[in-house]
């Protein structure tokens, strides 16, 4: 039985992906922000799939210490139950914040949760992914188009604009996947960006200002139900050999912004390594890559 990790699995797209993957017979490790939300999601899924093998770990991935702690828990669980093998890591957790707020590390919250947590979690789970010939899926979005990296002030500390910060975080996700794939030629592990399209979830309603909630409650009505994009994740994971594409939407492979290039990807990768206090290259060397 192949094991997958889904972050932000208690609601929205993450929950739908979890259902879809359990349906296909994967073993699920889900994460959610609070113990209550994890319990609730685990109970719902266990009721629907009584035979399924699933476990939830609560962690607020906005804070990097919690990402590291979660990774330790997952690695220990994988070692005990799955011979240390992880088949897919679905970096899906994300948020929208209408005000400038920081994580415990002093990083802007959307940047930290939507992007940096995925960067760090992937790093820590990488040895397990190598053992499992795994795939890394990152929830991006077409909103990354028409957006450039705001290098001058990457966390928008001077003038905060929630929409721009969100769009940039989704561009970061693709740049990360791109930089990772450059380093992984010759290795069976591959990274993919996923465009779920406009989906009717609660993302803009959780702990946001009236304006953001109002805008999102109108906008989300045009969105599809989360079951639709869940199929993309299942398709990318379901192929026997890791597919060659990079960015997938409901209808298959899709185009991405020209901003997703080597220069931006490497610059962001170096910055992210510094912000997380890690080095992928050293880890790759240790893993014999």
């Amino acid at each position: 039985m192949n094991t997958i990790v889904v972050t932000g699995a208690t609601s929205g797209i993450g929950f739908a992906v979890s259902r879809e993957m359990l349906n296909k017979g994967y073993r699920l490790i889900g994460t959610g922000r609070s113990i209550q939300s994890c319990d609730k999601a685990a109970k719902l899924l266990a009721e629907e799939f009584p035979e399924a093998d699933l476990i939830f770990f609560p962690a607020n991935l906005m804070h990097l210490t919690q990402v590291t702690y979660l990774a330790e828990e997952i690695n220990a669980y994988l070692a005990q139950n799955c011979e240390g093998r992880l088949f897919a890591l679905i970096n899906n957790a994300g948020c929208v914040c209408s005000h400038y707020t920081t994580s415990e590390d002093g990083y802007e919250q959307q940047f930290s949760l939507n992007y940096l947590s995925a960067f760090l979690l992937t790093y820590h789970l990488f040895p397990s992914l190598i053992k499992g010939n795994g795939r890394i899926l990152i929830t991006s979005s077409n909103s990354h188009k028409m957006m450039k990296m705001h290098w001058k002030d990457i966390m928008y500390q001077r003038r905060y604009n929630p929409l721009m910060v969100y769009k940039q975080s989704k561009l970061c996700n693709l740049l990360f996947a791109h930089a990772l794939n450059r380093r992984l030629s010759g290795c069976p592990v591959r990274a993919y960006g996923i465009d779920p399209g406009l989906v009717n979830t609660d993302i803009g309603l959780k702990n946001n200002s009236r304006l953001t909630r109002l805008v999102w409650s109108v906008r989300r009505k045009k969105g599809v139900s989360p079951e639709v994009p869940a199929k993309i994740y299942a398709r990318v994971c379901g192929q026997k050999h890791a597919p060659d594409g990079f960015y997938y939407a409901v209808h298959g492979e899709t185009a991405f912004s020209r901003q997703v290039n080597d220069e931006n990807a490497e610059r962001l990768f170096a910055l992210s390594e510094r912000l997380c206090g890690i080095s992928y290259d050293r880890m790759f060397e240790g893993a014999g890559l």
Partner: protein
Amino acid sequence: MNVLITGASGGLGRAFAICCAQRGCNLLLTDIEENGLYAIQNGLKRQFDGNILIKRCDMTIDKDVRELMDYANQQNFKLDMLLNVAGIDYEGGFMQRDFLQISEILSVNVEATLRITHHALKLRRPEGRFYVVFVSSLASLYPIPLKATYAASKRFLLDFSLALGQELKSKNVFVLSLCPGGLCTTQDSLRGIEAQGFWGSMTTNRIEKVVHQTINRSLRGKRIYIPGMFNRALGLISRFVPAFIIAKLLYERWSKAQKQWLVLND
């Protein structure tokens, strides 16, 4: 420039720390919450070049504050600026709260803040200017029923800072009171602002702007900073309308807000 920030692992403290680090300041961060200090220290060190020191301190305990100052001395960290951010509040009316909580508000917001200010002033550079910032509140401008202790404690800081500023003007010490409206620092504070409805969103300030402006104004030697046009207008009204009428109006507003707050927290 060497800056001491209290309450540095909270939302506003972190924002001040980032703002100062961006300007190339060396920082000594303190808070009662030690893990938070390690996290923000790491985050700042990875982004900026300045020297970032941390030391846990319960400001209500004299021994802790002395240890903090000894630590600064050992590190040869002479102060140029003190940002008094640490403060607390408990929602609910005077009789709905335990007296221990009421006294804790006073002890942290007033007594501990003055204690650390007194010690820090002794640790300032002998030559050069010294800047002190007190984080007061828009609440300091009025008597606020149901938030009486908090508002009065912030009023204390406002009056105190004006007097202290005058007292130490000749010694090159500049004292500023920051009187912000709502600041979205945590999910709880966001819910608190939501509960106030229209007034909440009108008086809320952008935290990233407030911290920059506060440092700028402090360096320019200003004494009071009320961020936002709307808040300044409210501040003006408080000068002309008798306090008992304001108290009556605010009682209406806060009893509604508190009911809403209870609903949102359920």
